[in-house]
């Protein structure tokens, strides 16, 4: 990975011989830290596969009598399946809408000349500052006003505010060479063809990255779905798994089985698309990756 000139490489190698012990120690320390950091997740997995009486009796490294009872119980006796459906509907809709709306808006600001363009751009930039949790009361008033409390749409609407996504699209569209646009315009393409046939496909990678991070964010959203879904059958998984606790008391194998199931889709999304998640995060912080 590191490319160095031969002379310095020889020199560094020489020094490495000297420093080897330190480097090995540092690596060992890193592995120990990583294991400690990961331990709570490991412990949750182990506990979720224990029989309920074992969770309070044993702290063994692996379940002594591995079982799926916790998972089966959650699937059969709670609304987990319904919450999963709700979470999927909400997260997929939020992701699709955020990406589509932001791409269109980013394209307009980047490529089109229209009155109010600069004002719109500054407004989107300024909205970084607005703390969305401060708006919960008024979001609820609005959503209740149109009769959308306890509906998927009511949960989705306030989650569609995504200035960062629009900003990133605008910046990426800015860097598409002008020649592409000019050539396509001469060929008689309209703005929609330009956006959907040229600009979006050219930036497919960034769309994937933004979609994944938006999906993870929507799946994990707590505060607003918690307020907007008061009926247990409208809850998302993220909100729902805490209501199980109220109902069961202390049944940790079941609780943790529910937690593992709730965390599974987002963890899988991350593990499958590690590079894209990294890209989206560094971009959202304003670092060009």
């Amino acid at each position, binding site marked *: 990975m590191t490319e160095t000139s031969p002379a310095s490489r020889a020199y*560094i190698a020489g020094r490495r011989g000297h420093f080897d012990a330190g480097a090995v120690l540092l690596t060992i320390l890193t592995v120990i830290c990583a294991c400690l950091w990961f331990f709570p997740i490991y412990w949750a997995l182990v506990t979720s596969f224990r029989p309920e009486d074992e969770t309070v009796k044993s702290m063994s490294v692996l379940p002594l009598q591995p079982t799926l009872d916790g998972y089966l119980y959650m699937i059969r006796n709670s609304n987990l399946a319904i919450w999963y459906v709700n979470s999927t509907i909400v997260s997929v809709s939020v992701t699709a809408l955020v990406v589509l709306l932001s791409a269109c808006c980013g394209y307009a*600001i980047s490529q089109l000349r229209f009155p109010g363009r600069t004002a719109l751009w500054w407004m989107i930039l300024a909205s970084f500052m607005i703390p969305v949790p401060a708006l919960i009361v008024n979001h609820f008033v609005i959503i209740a006003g149109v009769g959308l409390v306890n509906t998927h749409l009511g949960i989705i*609407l306030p989650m569609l505010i995504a200035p960062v996504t629009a900003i990133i699209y605008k910046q990426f569209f800015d860097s598409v060479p002008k020649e592409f646009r000019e050539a396509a315009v001469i060929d008689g393409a309209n703005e929609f063809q330009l956006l959907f046939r040229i600009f979006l496909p050219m930036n497919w990678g960034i769309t994937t990255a933004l979609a994944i991070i938006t999906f993870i964010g929507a799946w994990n959203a707590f505060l607003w779905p918690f307020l907007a879904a008061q009926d247990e059958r409208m809850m998302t998984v993220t909100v729902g798994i805490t209501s199980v606790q109220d109902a069961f008391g202390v049944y940790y194998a079941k609780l943790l089985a529910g937690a593992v199931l709730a965390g599974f889709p*987002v963890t899988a999304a991350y593990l499958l698309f590690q590079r894209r998640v990294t890209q989206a995060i*560094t971009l959202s912080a304003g670092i060009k990756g």
Partner: protein
Amino acid sequence: MLKSRKSEVLAAIVLAGPFVALYAWMFIYPTIQMVHLSFQNAPLIGEGTWAGLKNYTKLLSDRTFKTAVWNTAYFVLLTVVPGTAVALAIALMVSRLNGWFQSIILAMFFVPYVLPVTVVYILWDWMVNVQFGVLQPVIALFTGKPVNVWRTIPWFMPGVAIVTIWWTNGFSILLFLAGIRNIPKEIYEAALLDGASRTQVFWRVTWPLLWPVTVLCLTIQLILQLKIFDQVYLFSMGGRTQVTMVMVQYIFEQGFQRNNGGYAATIAVALFVIVVAVSVLQLQAARLRRGT
């Protein structure tokens, strides 16, 4: 020329229109309504009466509000700088590794970041469960007896802060890793050829070059943690919430549990002002730094 301009405006309306409409409906309108509501004596849903500055004078003498502001500040203090320092340390450790080994170690540090807050809550509630928690023997080493972390006031905020650092640090780790990757290799080579030690390389080369990323992490964390709600709410469920109250939680309590929409909006305005002020200060500071 004129014709193409007109079609451009039309296309802009169609493309940016939905975003702008939604933005106005879900962002600008509620912001204005929030200020309006803060001057009213109103329930959460339904008509209110004009109250003038009454909510604001009440706010100034409200002890729970003071507690909420103090707790929010305390939480910020416990998470922002310590969290960023931990993230930097982890990023430095991970950046030394290569290939698949690096990917695995990084994933072990990063995975908590993608988990829902309720999962994090259930995990840690179990970890420190006063009877069966796997961490209780460790806690007992220091205190001599098990501690009910979420029900013991002095332990509560530090506990939530540690969990928060564990949960949200992945974000800062990635930023630091990107920062470290952007440092030209030649600088390290030169430093090593000059016979600099590992610690010298860190303090004289890595750290100064990572300073802009550090500032970025600190400001992002600061603004994020001012809006703390989820973890504090979850861990304090069933406990004495008045003592561990944070600002967003107080908005929630007044608005949704006590049905004081007007007063909740007043608290929201206070939070709003604090967050905007911090953001503006940070932008000004960034501009000054760039100017010099």
